[in-house]
């Protein structure tokens, strides 16, 4: 899949919302707009990944990159990943359960 169609999902489930995912989504949207005015990264909301203990969760697809415990302070590094160096933010990966990560990629592959 070409880089132009990269999708960035922010969880808007109950737990992530309580931790501020709605506000984080808006800040990420603003930051991406500044760094990616052509919109190569499409920002989306996701109902719930099921990784509630590790929210706020942000998933980059098709990169198969599952960021957990994301806060606003992490946004510059995530934006750099998406629009700059392309390097993942390792400190935010590998936290969520493996089956949660897998079902997320499986569902995103089906177009959900």
């Amino acid at each position, binding site marked *: 899949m070409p880089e132009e169609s990269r999708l960035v999902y922010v969880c808007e*489930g*109950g*737990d992530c919302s309580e931790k501020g995912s709605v506000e984080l989504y808006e800040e990420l949207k603003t930051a991406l707009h500044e760094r990616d005015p052509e919109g190569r990264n499409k920002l989306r909301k996701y*109902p*719930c*990944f*099921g*990784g*509630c*203990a590790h929210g706020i969760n942000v998933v980059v697809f098709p990169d198969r990159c599952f960021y957990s415990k994301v806060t606003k302070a992490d946004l510059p590094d995530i934006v750099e990943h998406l629009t700059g160096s392309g390097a993942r933010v390792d400190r935010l990966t590998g936290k969520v359960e493996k*089956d*949660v990560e897998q*079902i997320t990629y*499986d*569902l995103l592959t*089906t*177009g*959900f």
Partner: protein
Amino acid sequence: MTPALLTAIPPGKPYEDLASYAASGGYRALGDALSGSGPSPAGVLRLVEEAGLRGRGGAAFPAARKWALAAAAGGSPKHVVANGGEHEPGSLKDRLLVARHPHKVIEGMALCAYATGASEGWLYLIEDMSEAVERAEEAAREARAAGLLGPARQDGGFRFEVRVVKAPPTYVAGEETAALEVIEGRKPWPRRKPPFPGESGLFGRPTTVNNVETLACVPGIVRRGPEWFRSLGTRGGVGTMLFTLDDRVERPGVHEMPMGATFRELLYEAGGGPVDKRPLRALLPATSSRFLPASRLDLPMTHEDVKAAGSSLGCGGLSFLLEGECVVERAAALAGFFKREQCGQCPACRMETSTLAAVLEQVRRGEAGDYASQIEKIVAFAAGKGHCSLIPMAAAPVVSALELFPEDFAHHASRGRCPGAPAPPR
């Protein structure tokens, strides 16, 4: 059929009060137990077992097995919880039963307490059931004044007290361990099992949690015998069961039917059939069960028969789909209900209910991807997880709707409207 539960109310009275209940043999079984002239505690348990009484709250678990677990468990005081935490769309039977026949429930609780060695009773209702709450409190006062209920005795003799508890109006509050949490003053979140309430329930003590209808069956079983109770059923069914029909039928409301009556007898004979005379397309025995095709109308409503057909009776709130009605709209509404009503405790349940609702909404709007694969993957991921049974309950109507009526889904997914609905004007 002569009703066993919804018996006649004395003229001029809003409910079966103590005097009228006692006049028809009520509290005789408890009185015999208290005076020593009736069966022993083990004898009462044996009668319930021989009657084949199964839970009427939805899970249909054998009542005697729950009772036996609590009876055998150590710890004091033991508790009995009569669960009337009914907040399922389409079911009104618990609130009606308690509002009309509170003494049947209270005597059933007391007999359960006698059999299991409990001294503390909790009649658990939803706070918006104002009529049922009022009658339950009044009935408990009447029974207390008559010496049938009261605080534990110092000499160790049987004594049983009943308190009425009001739960918040949420679906999960009706789950048996969520009820324990509410009674202990916390929010209605189901507990992880085991331990089961019979071993460690309310305040860590052995507790028997039965639906109010289950308990209301017990006085008749003890007084008239298990054979009498079994004979109330038909076609292999045992006893009677309360079913609710909504106002889409000629005679809506709660109907007591022999267990083993057919769906046709409930819907068309007792309920008078749908007001809209279109042919039936599908049955949904309860909100949390699987759809059955209309060809199963003559299926006997026993737990075994309905399970063999792939569904369950649940708590008996029967709804249906008529020809020309779209299953996608109904499935989307049900998925939305479970999304709203899940308690938020278990991540897999949050994920399943949120994503199923979102997939159904996408299908409804004609914006779906590979929805069949998505539903299958979501349900498989969540299966076996969670503290309670809401995960399979939320999946059942959606999965069965897709299996039975794939053409409705395909039409909606490609056009964004129901089969038969006109295309929007250009």
